[in-house]
């Protein structure tokens, strides 16, 4: 690495979040429905061990395994790590231990949180029990966490269970959220800053001499850095387009509208934009257009006809 990015490079938070759905299949359905009903289920593997949480396929033989058993809500910590600063959505809001717990009757360990006053209160081999959530829905969070427990393991081993429950849970929603800091980098920062002055500035490849708009900082064909800034446009030619007839979510544009590829004069490839100021069914390839800016907009709101004669097909066919 060389010097840090120059301070003028743009940066902004980028948060990506989405509620993914999951179909559980028979085994996970039984497991999570069991948690809802206060029962912890495992599955017997081909060699007679009990896996908790249960899996659909044998970890050794790969055979399908479906023989469910009920294990105890008490167990032993097999290993742990202290979590000083819980993040949002983690099981507890106060510092806690991540633990692997081998429940009594199980041969594999389950990952969860242990509510303990501090790392000095946690040790491998300590006895713990499930603290059930007050409201249970059929999710791993139905176990609110584990808590220290002094009692012995139950005498009886795991009991067979048919996995059948009233109103089984068959699917869950898994919220995913990713936090990034996004930077468009040097070349695009220059491009974005120029747009705020209503100018479109690309970069020319020193090798093939094509002008990239927007610039990426390097020519993808030649693999060399582009540094030579070139203002293009403002007018350009519609090289091709489609008429969008379906309304996109979160996009405040009335349909139908024209989504076009526009080769700005001097640019080596087309960029994408919306065409306005002309009925949608009169837009054509070769139409000459210019950007229309709105107050404070980061990019042209749309492009409108310049009134010039259409460009000859041969003049732009290499840019399609």
């Amino acid at each position, binding site marked *: 690495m060389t010097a840090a990015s120059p301070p003028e490079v743009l940066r902004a938070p980028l948060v990506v979040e989405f509620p993914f*759905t999951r*179909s*559980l299949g028979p085994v996970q359905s039984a497991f999570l429905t069991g948690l809802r009903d206060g029962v912890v289920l495992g599955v017997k593997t081909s060699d007679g061990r009990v896996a908790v949480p249960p899996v659909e396929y044998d970890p050794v033989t790969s055979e399908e395994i479906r023989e469910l058993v009920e294990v105890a809500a008490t167990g032993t910590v097999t290993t742990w790590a202290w979590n000083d600063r819980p993040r949002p959505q983690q099981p507890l809001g106060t510092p806690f231990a991540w633990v692997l717990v081998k429940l009594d009757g199980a041969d594999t360990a389950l990952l969860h949180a242990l509510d303990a006053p501090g790392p000095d209160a946690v040790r491998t081999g300590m006895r713990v029990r499930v603290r059930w959530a007050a409201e249970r829905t059929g999710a791993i969070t139905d176990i609110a966490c584990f808590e220290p427990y002094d009692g012995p393991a139950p005498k009886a081993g795991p009991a067979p269970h048919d996995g059948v429950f009233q109103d089984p849970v068959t699917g869950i929603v898994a919220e995913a959220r990713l936090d990034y800091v996004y930077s468009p980098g040097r070349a695009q920062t220059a491009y974005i800053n120029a747009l705020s002055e209503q100018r479109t500035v690309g970069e020319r490849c020193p090798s093939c001499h094509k*002008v990239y708009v927007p610039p990426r900082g390097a020519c993808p064909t030649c693999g060399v850095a582009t540094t030579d800034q070139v203002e293009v446009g403002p007018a350009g030619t519609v090289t*091709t387009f*489609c008429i969008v007839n*379906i309304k*996109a979510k979160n996009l405040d544009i009335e349909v139908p509208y024209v*989504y076009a590829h526009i080769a700005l004069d001097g640019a080596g490839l087309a960029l994408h934009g919306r065409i306005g100021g002309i009925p949608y069914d009169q837009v054509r390839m070769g139409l000459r257009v210019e950007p229309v800016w709105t107050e404070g907009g980061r990019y042209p709101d749309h492009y409108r006809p310049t009134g010039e004669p259409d460009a000859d097909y041969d003049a732009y066919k290499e840019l399609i």
Partner: protein
Amino acid sequence: MSKEPVAVVGIGQTKHVAARHDVSIAGLVREAATRALADAELTWADIDAVVIGKAPDFFEGVMMPELYLADALGAVGKPMLRVHTAGSVGGSTALVAANLVAARVHRTVLTLAFEKQSESNAMWGLSLPVPFQQPLLAGAGGFFAPHVRAYMRRTGAPDGVGSLVAYKDRRNALKNPYAHLHEHDITLEKVQASPMLWDPIRYSETCPSSDGACAMVLTDRAGAARSPKPPAWVHGGAMRSEPTLFAGKDFVSPQAGKDCAADVYRQAGITDPRREIDAVEMYVPFSWYEPMWLENLGFAEEGEGWKLTEAGVTEIDGDLPVNPSGGVLSTNPIGASGMIRFAEAALQVRGRAGEHQVPGARRALGHAYGGGAQFFAMWLVGAQEPTT
């Protein structure tokens, strides 16, 4: 030392549908894998390695699903690889598996690709809102529709060709029990009357969103000799890539696609693909891509692809059947779609395509593309062991 000949001895698919709420992702891939093993009359113990592919992790939001799927696919204690090349991934996954056999790294490899689109959000996964950038103005169809218009302008193709492709593929799908769309009452008029979504692309000219998986068992010459059913032999396979956008990119007929096809034909000794290839399974997510790829893959001269479609050449009883399975237009579990093309090509030369069998098919091409038409993967399979 020459390469080991590679044979396809087992093929399995799920019945592709809009939503498989009854199975987990593991259950879905398992179904295809066990069907491929059953077809090959092999067991998990016969498999030396597993090569799996799917589209971006963002689609279902399971990061690195191959880790979680190792036990469902019998990969415990064996090498397991994940391949990712966007929409072409099913094809490139099969090629990675084939290369492992050809290089004599492994003798018998299970390869599988899947997508559970009902649990995913491909639109969201592909169009994250990026700071400082103008929001995308159109979905996948909006991305490809301008290229279709450019093709029409370049070739003078009449407006109706896209509908002919969709009508053909949907009818072919009726002969394929695994296809997602079974539109028994399909008519050309219905396709032509369907809403124009991204003019020039109509609703009925777009692919569905499917849950599904496809698996194949690939093996060496000795494995093929033990195969109880006729194998399909790999005569050529290649991948090519190019940037999504670059000055001079030909979106209508990308250079990487031409180069990939030329490489496969060279390996297979094909000099006249139109005459020497009996069936084609090509990746056509929007109907107009059939005539576009016919040109890109060398089945027609530039500007002439639509004439083959219009003349019925690509119908299942034409002299170059394209997508007898119903194609991507009838079934699209994105990550699996490329492998389904490869597998359907293999089914044709094995003579095991059932009702959508092209009679006497000896050589078939499987084709996949992905990203912004930037990744290409193809293989050519034959009924006979290759001579070279």
